[in-house]
């Protein structure tokens, strides 16, 4: 048995070494023991009561997709970095289910390495949200940001559609899943499509706009606002986005500008990635004023020039 374990470990280390050489993230060797059950739909254990080896269905919420895990930001973690060391004994002790888990802030708060992600500001913004107010401490970061698979998409992707999709998936994971919804809410599960029926072209909106663009108080200082508002306060006024003085447009402008500079340096925003321009034909009063002023100036110049020519000719 010991030899088998040793061989497995060597195999895992060798596989790891080869994958590492190829530049791909590698699963920590010690995680394989957990994943033997937690990457499978079933697991077996010795039932001391019946004195039999038995097979059971794994709770789907406790199954880890290893490829998604390896693509996530925490791929280099060992399971017991976040979960109790006692999980290494099997079968697990019953009370381990009650272990308090770390939140994002426990590890990332007050750390200069992560300053660019503004964890503290996000935490303060979230504390004002309907999720925090109604859900209480039960509503942890992990309810939206799955720690096992989390990827930084908003900062790394150059396609707005990918960002919108990844962002909205977080909301939809509960708001189109009654079981997950009930994990944090005592209210009746509202049907997602019914509550958005009023929105014209709602499919197109969901593909192009993040849920939070209507369901938060948009500030352009925080890239992803976390202050999810109560449903009564969500944007329902079309002109708030489809107008000249649109906060959404300003946020987009800033986002594209900052991203261009992130990719190509301080002068990166000089060349546009796509023809987006804030200010085109936006204030009708300005348009009338400017065209009138231009015409009056040209008419004045033409009249003055004509008079000069006329008088000069007369004198000659």
């Amino acid at each position, binding site marked *: 048995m010991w030899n088998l374990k040793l061989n497995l470990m060597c195999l895992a280390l060798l596989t790891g070494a080869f994958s590492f050489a190829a530049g791909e993230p590698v699963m920590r060797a010690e995680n394989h023991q957990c994943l033997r059950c937690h990457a499978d739909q079933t697991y077996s254990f010795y039932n001391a009561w019946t004195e039999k080896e038995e097979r059971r269905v794994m709770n789907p919420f406790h199954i880890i997709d290893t490829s998604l895990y390896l693509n996530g930001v925490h791929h280099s973690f060992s399971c017991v970095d976040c979960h109790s060391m006692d999980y290494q004994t099997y079968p697990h002790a019953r009370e381990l289910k009650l272990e308090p888990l770390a939140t994002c802030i426990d590890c990332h708060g007050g750390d200069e390495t992560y300053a660019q992600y503004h964890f503290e500001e996000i935490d303060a913004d979230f504390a004002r949200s309907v999720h925090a107010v109604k859900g209480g401490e039960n509503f942890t970061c992990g309810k939206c940001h799955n720690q096992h698979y989390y990827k930084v998409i908003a900062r790394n992707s150059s396609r707005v559609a990918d960002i919108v999709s990844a962002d909205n998936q977080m909301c939809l994971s509960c708001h189109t899943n009654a079981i997950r919804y009930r994990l944090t809410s005592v209210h009746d599960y509202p049907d997602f499509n019914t509550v958005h029926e009023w929105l014209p072209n709602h499919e197109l909106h969901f593909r192009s706009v993040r849920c939070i663009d209507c369901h938060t108080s948009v*500030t*352009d*200082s925080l890239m992803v606002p976390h202050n999810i508002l109560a449903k009564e306060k969500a944007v329902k006024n079309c002109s708030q986005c489809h107008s*000249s*003085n*649109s*906060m959404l*447009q*300003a946020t987009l*402008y*800033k986002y594209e*500008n*900052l991203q261009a500079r992130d990719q190509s340096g301080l002068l990166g*925003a*000089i*060349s*546009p990635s*796509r*023809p987006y*321009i*804030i*200010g*085109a*034909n*936006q*204030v009708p009063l*300005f348009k009338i004023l*400017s065209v009138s*002023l*231009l015409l009056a*100036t*040209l008419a004045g*110049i033409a009249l*003055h*020039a004509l*008079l*000069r020519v006329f*008088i000069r000719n007369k*004198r000659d």
Partner: protein
Amino acid sequence: MPLKRIYFYPLWLRIWHWINGAGIIILILTGFIMHWGIHGSVIDFNIAVTLHNVTGIIVAISYFFFFIGTLLFYNSRYYRIRLRGWQSRIYKQAQYYLYGMFKGEKPPFPLNERRKFNPLQKTSYFYVMFLFLPLIVFTGIGLMYPELIIDKVYRYNGVFLTAMFHAALGFILFIFLLVHIYASTIGYDPLANFRSMINGWHEIHDHQEEGKDHSDDDEFDEEYPAAKDHPTVDPGEK
């Protein structure tokens, strides 16, 4: 033949003037394409945006040199506005442009080594060079680095307000440019002022000296003629 010539436009000023002039024309053209969202014109939209940004930087840098040059050399004195009697001088000059010159009157404020600009020129140049241009440079920098812009002013977002302000200033400068180019043709002959801006010398012709109004001159009394860096005067042939 001119009565005398004044070296109003030193080389540094002429270089700045033509760089700035070409830059402003490019900025106005590309600015129009951007503001009106014109696609498929002579300049492709994306190229127009890039060109606008690059030219904006060049014009901003050249403005910085103008500002330093004006502070260091004699040039700044021509921009000093004496507030006493300012309104009546503006009125007098406007009257001349509107009908005096057609009736054969002499310019009320002929140029000399103490006065490079007539009151209308001085006022408009003062506002353009020390108010509108710096403001359009600052708002342009704001649009290039939008994190510098204040987020919200009442219910208006800062980027929108800055963009509107920038566009409005651009339009004012466009109107100024039209009038400036046209007014440059009002000289001894229509091309005289353009020649001056190329060779640096402004020609004074005798008939201009008649009807001379000195009410604008005393602002330089303290400095002139003691100032050592006042412009060179070529007495010409009499």
